[in-house]
């Protein structure tokens, strides 16, 4: 994170105020998503005994993996907090919205993890594929560049990415001290809801034959 911050704040001159804080917040949200989903992807395949030798609700394996990542990100955020103050960020009560933002992102990760981890049992190269998707996603989300650079023709497509909205909202509450927009929250919630539904359906469908496939 330090390297990325240095590289982008020195090499790329932008007119974004407090660029270091701006990029660190983006990286916090992005890393939670990238690390959370990639780790959860292999959690079923990595624990075959928990599936074949004992009966427990299998989504718990995914959930525990995701919760561990939520804890990690929370700690990451707590270490980031003094740094933000050092960088001159004016912390207000709006900063408390980071809680609900992380919870929403957690649900987004959980939804994707359900699909990915169960599909990974059958499709073993999903890890490599997801790795590429994550790399693409990094550039398709406004982590290291200003989203206003996106041409307006593709703006709508671009904004369909729920991570974009989470990153934007986080930056707004810390750097601009504004309330999260209801539209953003609603959009994220709808996409999380749809993905959760897909996740649960995929997981339930593949769960019954998981023990045979492992």
């Amino acid at each position: 994170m330090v390297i990325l911050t240095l590289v982008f704040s020195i090499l790329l001159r932008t007119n974004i105020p407090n660029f270091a804080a701006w990029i660190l917040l983006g990286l916090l949200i992005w890393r939670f998503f990238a690390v959370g989903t990639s780790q959860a992807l292999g959690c079923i395949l990595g624990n075959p005994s928990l599936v074949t030798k004992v009966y427990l609700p299998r989504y718990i394996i995914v959930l525990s993996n995701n919760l561990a990542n939520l804890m990690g990100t929370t700690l990451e955020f707590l270490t980031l907090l003094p740094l933000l103050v050092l960088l001159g960020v004016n912390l207000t009560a709006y900063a408390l919205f980071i809680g609900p933002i992380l919870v929403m992102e957690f649900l987004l990760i959980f939804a994707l993890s359900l699909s990915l981890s169960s599909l990974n049992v059958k499709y073993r190269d999903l890890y490599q594929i997801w790795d590429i998707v994550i790399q693409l996603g990094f550039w398709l989300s406004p982590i290291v560049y200003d989203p206003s650079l996106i041409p307006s023709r593709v703006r709508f497509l671009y904004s369909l990415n729920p991570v974009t909205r989470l990153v934007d909202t986080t930056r707004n509450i810390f750097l601009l001290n504004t309330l999260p927009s209801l539209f953003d929250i609603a959009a994220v919630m709808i996409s999380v809801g749809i993905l959760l539904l897909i996740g649960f359906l995929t997981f339930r469908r593949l769960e019954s034959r998981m023990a045979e496939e492992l």
Partner: protein
Amino acid sequence: MIEAQNVWKQFKIPHQRHNTVLENIAGVLSVLEGKRYSYEEFWALKEVSFSLEDGESIGIVGPNGGGKSTLLKLMARTMKPDKGRIEARGSIAPILELGIGFQGDITVKENALVYGIIMGIQRSQIRKRLPSILEFAGLTRFQDAKLKNLSSGMNVRLAFSIAIQCDADIYLVDEALAVGDMEFQQKCLDKFREFKKQGKSIVLVSHSMNLVKDFCEKALYLLNGETKAIGTSEEVTQRYVEDMQTLYKAG
């Protein structure tokens, strides 16, 4: 009480295995070209039935690949039968593999807690019974040691001591008794006898005919997924031993 009625279980042995997205795409293309997706059917269990009352125990015997472990997994509900049904009244404790979820880097005590929860014991119950668990395993001295520093025998003893604390009505035991030293094996057998007196049922998969004869009233002999014999453990083990002898002579 556990009852299996005409249980069938099929595994598919595909002629080409598609394990990746890439292979699947290639597979779809070859189907479009006229090649058929084909697989061999392998019936791991064919019309297996048995029933077990409270306080009874059944031994499952047979050569490797006979379907014993598949049957246990079906009873443990990690797989579903393709035909027929298995009904159980009461809770089931599957002791199919010992030490699931053990982590070498945390202490014996912490591992006991995690494993207990995986096996379905309440957290408060494990805390309360921890001293007796450690004593049964003979590991009281090592309770704060890291698990990776224990011998593999100690590992298994710890796992087994926790597993038998499940308070289940039905215990599924897969060769788990064949671990530990003689003293520990005897202790485990005594414990299972006690369970039987308490009205709990035990399903035991074993290659030790003496153990099955000694411990179980009933036995089931599976060969290539079919029921070769079912009845009292005395008769069934005799039949199995005879079969194996003729096979050995013939081969």
